[in-house]
């Protein structure tokens, strides 16, 4: 079919061929000059999984994704619940809250870097006044904290939109019925609103994890470049740094393959979920 040709062409050339290449290359090691390569089977994978840094990168990714997801969803839910309580004006707040979605992760990184910069950062300065010496260039935890906050920040609007839509879809009569039953706000939230919101929550959970995995590269690259000592090197960042900076193609390819498996799993989870929602 001629109509499919463009899509198929792009897909094959830029998706399947490279993916195949990644799998192929993951089975070889090449010398530093890239002149010859030697077949090592699953050697790259064995080496990787034995690598302390790679395993640490797994842990880093888990912590980073977990925190980013919790922070961005938590703040968004809080704001959405507040906005939903308003009869009028929630639209205004929505407008005020949604546009950071448009800010690129890399730009968000620069903005937060500026606030926490060791030399000029205004937050650093005030923290200094309070006797706290902020230095994310040296301190692992502070570095992680900063990339988490910067990554969550831009994500809040997205989550806010979906939570607000989810809240507004809950029939008011259900909540009013609970209020007549004498449930106070917090009880209403815990026993009625949150359970009814669970499809949205689950959906956002998956989407946010995918985001934290793949789309936060810009934040990390601008703020910490994976440092200090790989403390903020998430898996995607490591593929980049080993492949392009370290020129270790075999290892980078093997990492790509592992990532492929992870994305595959996440995609399947996502679609299983959508399927379930369709059956509702």
């Amino acid at each position, binding site marked *: 079919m001629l109509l499919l040709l463009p899509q198929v062409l792009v*897909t094959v050339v830029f998706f399947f061929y490279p993916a195949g290449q990644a799998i192929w290359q993951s089975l070889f090691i090449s010398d530093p000059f890239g002149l010859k390569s030697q077949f090592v089977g699953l050697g790259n994978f064995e080496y990787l999984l034995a690598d302390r840094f790679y395993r640490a990168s797994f842990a880093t990714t888990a912590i980073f994704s977990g925190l980013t997801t919790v922070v961005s969803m938590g703040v968004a839910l809080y704001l959405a619940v507040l906005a939903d309580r308003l009869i009028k004006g929630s639209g205004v707040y929505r407008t005020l809250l949604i546009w950071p979605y448009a800010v690129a992760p890399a730009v968000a990184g620069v903005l937060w870097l500026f606030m926490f910069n060791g030399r000029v950062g*205004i937050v*650093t300065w005030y923290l200094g006044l309070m006797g706290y010496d902020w230095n994310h260039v040296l301190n692992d935890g502070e570095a992680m904290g900063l990339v988490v906050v910067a990554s969550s920040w831009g994500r809040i609007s997205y989550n806010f939109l979906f939570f607000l839509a989810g809240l507004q879809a809950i029939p008011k009569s259900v909540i009013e019925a609970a209020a007549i039953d004498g449930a106070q706000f917090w009880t209403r939230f815990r026993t009625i609103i949150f359970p009814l919101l669970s499809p949205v929550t689950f959906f956002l959970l998956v989407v946010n994890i995918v985001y934290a995995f793949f789309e936060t590269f810009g934040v990390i690259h601008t703020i910490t470049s994976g440092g200090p000592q790989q403390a903020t090197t998430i898996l995607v960042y490591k593929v980049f740094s080993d492949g392009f900076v370290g020129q270790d193609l075999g290892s980078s390819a093997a990492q790509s393959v592992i990532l492929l498996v992870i994305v595959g799993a996440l995609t399947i989870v996502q679609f299983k979920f959508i399927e379930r929602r369709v059956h509702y």
Partner: protein
Amino acid sequence: MPRANESGMVRKRGVGYWLTHLGLIIGVLFIFFPIWLAFVASTVSQQEIVRPPMPLWPGDQFIENYTAALFSGVNVPVAKMLLNSLIMALGIALGKIVISLLSAFAIVYFNFPGRRFFFWMIFLTLMLPVEVRIVPTFQVIANFGMLNSYSGLIFPLIASATATFLFRQYFMTVPDELAEAARVDGARPMQFFWHILLPMSRTNIAALFVILFIYGWNQYLWPLLITTDPEMNTIVMGIRQMFPSGDDVADWPVIMATSILAMIPPIIVVISMQKLFIRGLVDSEK
């Protein structure tokens, strides 16, 4: 005044009402603050920034800083980077829409051998984000000699399973009888596509365009890899290139002016097309 029977209801205008507003305002400030600070920094002089704390109110260097950024920049004028970003974002958004429309049209309206195969093939691309296949894709582009070119920036990002599925979904809600009526009216398949399907999909197309434009504009990793020539840098990745290596002090006012410039186009798109944007978001995630 709140009446007794309204107590506990959402409508009461007591302390809770103002606390709600207060909470939201704090949230808005938290969201705004980094951007406000960037804006302030882009209007003051370098001296004011390097002696912390920096001011919290805009200064008088607005024109100087933005002129410096737009027309000289650090490595390359920001105006050039803006242009590059614009071309890339438009290329990606329009490219994705065009090829997705065509594919969805083919899949929904034609019965041909291998239809399911192609469908799954497109589906699989969902599992292959750029980040996963960076090195080999880079090699492909290098082999084609497409490094430092717009086509190199655009093509690898142009396939879109999400958009294809969205259009497929939409086309499937269009009654078959409409296609048949067009056939009886004498329309060829492509005429049906142009005259009927395309105009009917325009809201979906616009909504998707908003999302894809932002997606394209905000690309970071890919341009970082394939544009070694500063002339081809996009603005989002170019900002990071403006930081000096080593111990030199960054030219913060210009960097911050650039950051603001990098945010403006997508923010304008989001705010001015808020309805379409929200619709696009919700659609493309289903």
